[in-house]
């Protein structure tokens, strides 16, 4: 059942659970963050679609338009960051951190500049724009840089909280955001502690068959899968691993010990993303059979969000299949 301790959205399993885009949650968070007078917002010609315009309206003097120049934006932010400002840079994840990765690595991360990187329109759920605009590599790109922290919020509410939290976390932070409206899983009361995962769902009873660990809006599918699995007498826990770096290793190991099998869920290439991060920990600390639900090293294509989730095997039934597969491999 839903983990009521974290105050989840009670309507999750309703036909209309309430939907909001992560970028909208981010935009609200940014506006709230503006109360801290050192927060500065930069964009590379995408103020509307990155929802920066809400901040701009209230704090025009702290809004910096860079034009279509992501490399310049990143390094300008680095200069601001080493001068006491808390810059948020905004573009689509394929361009930032895609195109400006080296500037992020050297001038932001190695330089320890207090810059927050918002990677918008990440994942294939960006939809009709097609593969050029669907970032499926950004988590890998960011988590492999020393000194970088990585957060993947699961819904608009968590995106808002993560945005606000990142203001008070010193140093470079990567926030992974998405374009389309997706179901709300959490509520304003749900606690967001940077670096600390929590279960969204725990099946009743003392034993567990599988731990489903994931991040991002696909956790909605994971919840639907968990509910269906319960109907089939398969007991699961669904973990919201919103912070990919620093990773909540203890929780991952603890749940693996309890369930003895893990399925990871992410809207990212299975190479180097959330599943990889979980596997790196378990391989060293407590190896258990694992299955990876994610994009299997292929580029996406144009389509609607739910069509794409289905086409690239990120759907509820794919999580159920992965679970059954991993259960067969259990010792």
């Amino acid at each position, binding site marked *: 059942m839903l983990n009521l301790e974290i105050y989840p959205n009670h309507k999750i399993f309703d036909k209309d659970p309430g939907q909001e885009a992560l970028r909208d949650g981010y935009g609200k968070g940014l506006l709230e963050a503006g109360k801290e007078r050192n927060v*500065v917002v930069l964009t590379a010609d995408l103020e509307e679609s990155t929802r920066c315009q809400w901040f701009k309206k209230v704090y025009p*003097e*702290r809004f*910096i338009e*860079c*034009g279509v*120049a992501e*490399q*310049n934006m*990143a*390094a*300008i*932010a*680095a*200069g*601001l*960051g*080493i*001068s*006491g*400002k808390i*810059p948020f840079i905004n573009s689509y994840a394929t361009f930032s951190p895609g195109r400006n990765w*080296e*500037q992020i690595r*050297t*001038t932001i991360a*190695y*330089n*320890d500049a207090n810059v927050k990187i918002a990677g918008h329109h990440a994942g294939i759920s960006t939809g009709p724009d097609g593969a050029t605009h669907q970032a499926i590599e950004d988590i890998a790109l960011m988590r492999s840089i020393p000194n970088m922290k990585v957060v993947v919020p699961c819904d608009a509410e968590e995106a808002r909280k993560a945005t606000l939290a990142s203001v008070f976390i010193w140093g470079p932070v990567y926030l992974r955001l998405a374009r389309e409206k997706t179901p709300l899983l959490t509520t304003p009361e749900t606690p967001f502690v940077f670096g600390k995962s929590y279960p969204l769902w725990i099946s009743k009873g003392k034993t567990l068959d599988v731990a489903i660990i994931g991040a991002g809006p696909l956790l909605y599918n994971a919840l639907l899968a968990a509910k269906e699995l319960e109907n089939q007498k398969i007991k699961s826990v669904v973990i919201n691993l919103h912070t990919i770096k620093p990773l909540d290793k203890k929780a991952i190991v603890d749940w693996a010990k309890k369930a003895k099998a893990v399925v990871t869920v992410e809207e990212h290439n299975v190479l180097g993303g959330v599943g990889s991060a979980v596997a790196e920990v378990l391989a060293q600390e407590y190896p258990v059979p694992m299955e990876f639900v994610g994009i299997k090293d292929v580029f996406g294509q144009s389509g609607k969000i739910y069509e794409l989730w289905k086409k690239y095997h990120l759907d509820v039934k794919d999580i159920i299949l992965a679970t059954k597969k991993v259960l067969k491999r259990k010792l």
Partner: protein
Amino acid sequence: MLLSYHRLKELYKTANRLREDVIEMLTEAGSGHSAGPLGMAEVFAAMYFFILNHRPKEPSWPQRDRLILSNGHICPILYATLARAGYFPLKELKTLRKLGSRLQGHPHRKSLSGVETTSGPLGSGLSQAIGVALAARLDGARYHTYVIMSDGEHQEGNVWEAVMFAGKNRLSNLTAIIDRNNIQIDGYTEDVMPLEPLRDKYQAFGWNVIDVNGHDIEEFVAAVLEAKAVYEKPTVIIAHTIPGKGVSFMEQKYQWHGIPPTKEQAKEALRQLRRLGGKIKSEHD
């Protein structure tokens, strides 16, 4: 004139001493770049010993002028200057590029105080300097931001994004200094990928441009003062320099861009520098 004859003479002497430091450091390190650091000795001497408002004993003094080094590979001259200015002990210069040293092969802000930013990968220094200058503008701070760039790095697209931005935003609290020494690793800039007309390009982007002889400290200082007086746009000072300046066998040779002298070559280089290019006769001649 702001610079007295005596002061000017001292600055030239300092520049030459910095060159000796550079040769000694590179020889000890066994790797690194020779031509660029030697060519920029006068500019660094003028900046740190005359122009910059700074406190070597208080490197993070908030009101200090900022000097961002974009072409990080010429850091031997930065390190030598910082040490001579009193940021850290001179003897540490010998640790350049060695394990555990604060003097990294390319400058790292977190390793050594006095280094304003991390650089090495070319083309992003001007952008960073813009960020620093914007922060000053937001805070109403009076410090001035300088950025030293190489000519070769103008082949990076990032530079032009930054040039465009500074021009649009009329960042007059920012001054760029280009080491126009016409060389890069693979050859002469105009052969590898022509940069000219550099002056016209900057002007087209809304900058004030001043060309100077980068080895003439009086001319260079006058240009910086002019840059600070121009309020409607950012200024770029194109400092025409001789790569490898002061060491006859290195001067004007792109082959010396990215290598250090051998022990024997260093001996000869130091001999030349100590005689100020033949102006002083030693008893051994």
